[in-house]
């Protein structure tokens, strides 16, 4: 082996990497929040009897699920740029991830709505609750429980996916890593450090999610 590892520069830059890790968390979390809201709307649109709403939802969902995420980022970058729409690198990543998350989450939500037994809604209505009351008090809490796990997975997926930001010039963890590595040419060392940080972020998310689930779903 002809290669000498240089770890010191990586250690020196660790604060920068960790800071970039926070950006990663920020952009993925934001994209989850936006994706959840949009996903819920898309799920309802897809279940609605309105044809245009259904078609809009289906188009969005299928495009998001059947093309590469990187392609979607490029699209929101240079694709839209062709029409004179300019998003900053941060917005490209945020919009791209939110678009993708919404597509995947919508399907989860739809599955969740369908998994709550219809008698739950009927039971609520038979007690005199309005449609809105039955939906918000009885159905949605149960849907939330069903989609909680898939949502956690989507959050992890969003964190992993956010690394694509590197390809469109946003300096979250992967982008910052590439930036630092390109200055010192120690690609392997830097990216190994990044890999470890990603791993830790993912584990923290999963741990927190488990903790939260334990608090939220005592009734199981």
């Amino acid at each position: 082996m002809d290669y000498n590892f240089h770890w010191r520069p990586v250690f020196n830059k660790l604060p920068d990497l960790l800071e970039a890790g926070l950006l990663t968390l920020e952009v993925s979390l934001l994209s989850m929040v936006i994706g959840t809201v949009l996903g819920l709307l898309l799920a309802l649109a897809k279940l609605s009897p309105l044809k245009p709403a259904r078609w809009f939802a289906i188009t969005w969902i299928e495009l998001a699920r059947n093309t590469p995420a990187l392609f979607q980022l490029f699209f929101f970058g240079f694709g839209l740029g062709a029409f004179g729409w300019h998003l900053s690198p941060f917005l490209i990543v945020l919009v791209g991830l939110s678009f993708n998350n919404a597509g995947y989450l919508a399907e989860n939500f739809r599955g969740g709505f369908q998994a709550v037994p219809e008698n739950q809604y009927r039971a609520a209505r038979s007690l005199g609750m309005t449609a809105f009351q039955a939906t918000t008090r009885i159905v949605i809490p149960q849907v939330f429980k069903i989609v909680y796990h898939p949502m956690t997975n989507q959050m992890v997926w969003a964190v992993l996916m956010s690394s694509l930001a590197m390809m469109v010039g946003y300096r979250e963890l992967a982008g910052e890593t590439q930036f630092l590595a390109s200055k010192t040419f120690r690609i392997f060392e830097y990216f190994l450090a990044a890999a470890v940080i990603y791993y830790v972020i993912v584990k923290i998310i999963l741990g927190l999610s488990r903790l939260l689930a334990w608090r939220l779903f005592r009734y199981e």
Partner: protein
Amino acid sequence: MNETVTFFSGFKINDLFFLGEAALQTLMIAAISISSGTLLGAICGWGLAEGKTVVRWTLNSILDVFRSVPLLIQLILFYNLFPIIGFDLGPFASGIIVLSMYTCALVASVVRGGIESVQQPMRRAARSLGMSYLQSMRHVIFPIGLRAVLPSWIGVALGVLKDSALVSVLGYVELLRASQILMTRTQEPFLILALAGAFYFALSYPLSRYSKQLEERWAS
């Protein structure tokens, strides 16, 4: 400047061939990675479902890494690691190795789920007829588990097909990279992205529809 040398030129017919060739590369990378990853993943999944605690724990923690670190980072890491440890693997080989391991990790959990979905009762029924462990695996658990697994396996395969776009980061000219090259040469980002997107979509959409149908058919 010499008139015969042009650096930029519009989109031409033979660029379609260039894209087509790149699409073939995408398919090839995906096909090889999916098949080798599936094979490996099936073995690992069996170990996860039926192995001793030590085996399960070890396998799980290794495979977990592939699921918790962005694929992009994995690709860069291994691409730079192989030459360091003395193998000069090009982007193609590196990409396939990383994608295969990634596929393996995903397939393993799918297969584990499949084996576990053939619940105790079915195994007991098989064993109570006098079948040996291997006979019950081969004639009962495996064929029934396969049904449970096939839709999710298609999901994994489509995911890998889309993720193969990331091999572009190693400079390998697959579909998305080719689009990028053409995009900057021809200044027609929208047209070219639309072509690439359509290719992925045309491949992914029917298959995901099919897998949904399978799921519904076999759910009953």
